[in-house]
């Protein structure tokens, strides 16, 4: 029997030591993006926009041209870059604070314009980089540095559902929510990201993939418990589903 190589380090990722914590969702999603870049052969035409958040150094891992955006402005920076480099693949990578708090306006309007970009949204229900403060996606009752008694929706509002919010707009082409808490869901996430990038290559318009993700460090739990928490607490509130495909809302 001849040997067949079925797994290797993606070409589109740099072989450097990761700064992400054990069990963090960012690293998993980075790997998926790199694998997809390899599979679609787009490493030489990918432009990676890094947000401000734990993934601020995304361009140190993804082996492609990289650009930093100010906190929350990644969709606007992506807009400007894509309008100049029309034939390139612009990946706009963002966390929940970035996308839904400080950058809500930029997110909504880039989606509303149907910018030809692919937004990868890491929802970990917390501000990872700054040490665990409340995010717009922090769950009701969730204890964080700035909600020491648990998030009280009467005081600070309810967790925001990004996919549902963007799905009210006319322009988006593709909106899907995924998760990376187990292998099955990681595989689904890969499919979704691949579709979102293929849409851009095909000139279809704005694609958005939300990924429910773990931040064991700032949730103060072990990696496996963090994965379970996504499944048991986040997923019921943030249903995993495709909201829009081919520009049509799904039933």
């Amino acid at each position, binding site marked *: 029997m001849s040997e067949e190589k079925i797994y290797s380090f993606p070409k589109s990722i740099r072989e450097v030591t990761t700064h992400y914590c054990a069990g963090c969702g960012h690293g998993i999603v980075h790997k998926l993006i790199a694998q997809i870049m390899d599979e679609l052969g787009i490493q030489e035409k990918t432009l990676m926009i890094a947000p401000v958040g734990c993934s601020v150094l995304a*361009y140190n891992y993804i*082996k492609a041209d*990289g650009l*930093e955006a100010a906190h929350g402005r990644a969709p606007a920076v992506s*807009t400007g870059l894509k309008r100049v480099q029309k034939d390139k693949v612009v990946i706009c990578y963002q966390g929940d604070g970035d996308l839904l708090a400080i950058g809500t*306006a930029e997110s909504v309007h880039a989606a509303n314009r149907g910018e030809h970009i692919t937004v990868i949204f890491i929802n970990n229900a917390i501000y990872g980089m700054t040490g665990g403060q409340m995010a717009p996606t922090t769950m009701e009752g969730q204890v964080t540095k700035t909600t020491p008694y648990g998030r009280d929706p009467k005081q600070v509002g309810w967790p925001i559902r990004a996919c549902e919010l963007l799905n009210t707009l006319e322009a988006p082409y593709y909106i899907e929510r995924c998760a990376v808490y187990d292998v099955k869901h990681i595989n689904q996430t890969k499919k979704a990201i691949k579709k979102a990038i293929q849409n851009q290559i095909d000139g279809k318009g704005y694609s958005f993939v939300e990924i429910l993700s773990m931040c064991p460090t700032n949730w103060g739990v072990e990696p496996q418990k963090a994965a379970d928490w996504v499944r048991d607490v986040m997923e019921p509130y943030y249903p995993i589903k495709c909201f829009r495909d081919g520009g049509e809302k799904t039933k």
Partner: protein
Amino acid sequence: MSEKILMKGNEAIGEAAILAGCRHYFAYPITPQNEIPAYMAKRLPQVGGTFLQAESELAAVSMVMGASAGGARVMTSSSSPGISLKQEGISYMSGAQLPAVIVNMMRGGPGLGNIAGAQGDYFQATRGGGNGDYHVLVIAPGNVQELADYTVKAFELADKYRIVCMILGDGYLGQMSEPLILPEAVKELPAKDWALTGAKGRDPHIIASLRLADGALVGHVYDLYKNYAEIEKNEVIYDTQNLEDADYMLVAYGTSSRVCKKAIRVLRAEGIKVGLFRPVTLWPFPKKEIAEAAKKVKKILTVEMSMGQMVQDVQINAGKYCDVDFYGEPGGMLPVVEKIVQRVKSYV
């Protein structure tokens, strides 16, 4: 195109930008510069360019940052409150060494202030404005012809030094119509081998202001300041009038300098020898030049449409050679010729 045509200041900026090769413009409306976005919305599609009305100045300047990283000549314009929001992007672009042209047609402040022309943003423009150690190259045109000419120049300098270049005008200058000769169209744009074009046959380019490694930011800021030193050495622009025999020197930029020119005519008619020193680049400030000029006069009167901002640079650089006095009008008011005349007469 050497024919004289009549144009509004704000529109002259727009056409000059297009002549300079700018095909991307992102902005959010604000008075008194709304003729610029209106002009760009009409003209850019005619030349295959992109006009986009952004959702805010924060977004507009971020779009500028993205387009600049993609290698394009790109511009945004606004007025004072909007420029405050753009400081975020200006600081990021300065850190990432991305060229761009930012137009500020100043209005009265602080806050919402009013919509009349003013010069209250001098500190913000020349001291950095956003967070961190950096400079923006600031050019202050004095008439519609200069608005056009210096807009082209701003694109050249921005690319040459990979710096943010600001055209600092005001509401009066933007709204006035004057005859001008449009600048020549720029035929060849400079190559940008640092731009984000896809890592094909080369290592990936990374454009960022973040420098986390030990000592990396220190080295980076020193590099920025080496670049600034070159600009200070090579790119100072200023103008003088009637200084040869002057006993008294008015110092003013932009619209204020136009009022000063009128005052000089009145004073000269009465036999009082007065001249004008007009900084055109506000950063780099014409330090040596104003010091030399100061040595030859008895007294300086700085005239501004503010409570006194540029006067600090005048004092720092010329103050040891002669007395520096100040006359300013805040709140969107023009300086009054008669007040300048009376003040200078009081020195005699």
